[in-house]
């Protein structure tokens, strides 16, 4: 009799792919993959009802290991393909898995406009503050002053917050977690997939090989310990002053609001056009 964890591995992993996976030892991508599987398993969705799309990067490897309908697409276009899938068949649960560079640099325009349109999609963004796969170049979320291969003497640009960008762009559901809080990622992905409208889950992850090593943050274990110390829940963050919140990461559901969903609005437009009887 397999345990629940074993049952999930047997059911959802593609065992004809080569395991162990390509990610470095201790990479947070594996933790997010496990959380995604547990969330889908808990929602009792069949494998045919779920579509995963991903772009390029370390995070883009994730759907290749998972036995759903998957699309491994061009760089930054995970949401674009997800939009197409959703418009073609609105009954499917579409999840776009992206990295920070994939979502906010190369696919930045797609990201903000998908949030503005409020399509009924789920976007999981794994934020490791660096372009890990290509050799450690700085990304839009690399903090000021950090060392990377393209900012050897310190990064001169400022980072932006992906979750706050999604809130401003008009997403229905925005949440943030870190890879240390793996059970929270489960719950947030589950809520995001149930949400009508564009749902963003930002997961702060560790790239100890490209980012942690150059910035003297230690290995995977040390970075996970830092996530644990830096994390502040949303309810606790409300009581803290801005000075106390400096260097902290707010985790939990940041925004959960009801907005008209474009796939449903499109149906209404079609009905209105049909009823008006105009011959266009």
């Amino acid at each position: 009799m397999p345990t629940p964890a074993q049952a999930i591995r047997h059911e959802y992993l593609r065992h004809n792919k080569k395991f162990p996976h390509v990610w470095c030892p201790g990479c947070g991508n594996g933790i997010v993959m496990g959380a995604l599987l547990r969330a889908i398993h808990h929602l009792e969705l069949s494998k045919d009802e779920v579509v995963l799309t991903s772009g390029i990067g370390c995070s883009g490897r994730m759907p290749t290991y998972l036995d759903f309908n998957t699309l491994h697409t061009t760089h930054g276009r995970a949401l674009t393909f997800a939009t197409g899938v959703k418009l073609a068949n609105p009954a499917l649960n579409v999840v776009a898995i992206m990295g920070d560079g994939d979502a906010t640099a190369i696919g930045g325009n797609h990201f903000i406009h998908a949030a503005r349109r409020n399509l009924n999609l789920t976007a999981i963004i794994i934020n490791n503050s660096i372009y890990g796969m290509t050799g450690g170049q700085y990304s839009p979320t690399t903090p000021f002053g950090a060392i990377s291969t393209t900012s050897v003497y310190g990064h001169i640009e400022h980072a932006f917050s992906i979750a706050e960008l999604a809130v401003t762009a008009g997403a229905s559901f925005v949440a943030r977690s870190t890879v240390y809080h793996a059970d929270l990622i489960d719950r947030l992905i589950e809520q995001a997939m149930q949400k009508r409208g564009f749902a963003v889950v930002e997961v702060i992850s560790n790239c100890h090989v490209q980012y942690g090593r150059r910035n003297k943050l230690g290995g995977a274990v040390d970075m996970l310990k830092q996530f644990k110390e830096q994390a502040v829940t949303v309810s606790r963050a409300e009581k803290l002053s801005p000075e106390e919140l400096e260097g902290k990461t707010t985790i939990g559901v940041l925004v959960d609001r009801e907005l008209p969903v474009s796939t449903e609005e499109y149906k209404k437009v079609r009905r209105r056009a049909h009823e008006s009887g105009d011959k266009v």
Partner: protein
Amino acid sequence: MGKATKKSEPVTDTKDKTPSSRKKKYFDVSFYHDWCKSCGICMAFCPQKIIGTDSKGRPVIEDADRCVGCRFCEIHCPDFAITVSDRKPKRRINDV
């Protein structure tokens, strides 16, 4: 090992007096070493600190009786290499 058996003594004493729901539960932790990359997350974050290393640096369970079944290692293993299961009673003498 000696310490661990001492710790579990009070639990076995109260076993007869308290309802069966208070009985200490035992868990088995198994590692699938073919998928393990020895990242060290399970060893560092185990609340009971019962995961150690073998000569190759791979994780091994040192004292399975002290496992509290929190499943932190199972859900934080990036390589799906850890399974925590409820301990089943032994049926044969040579059962592992």
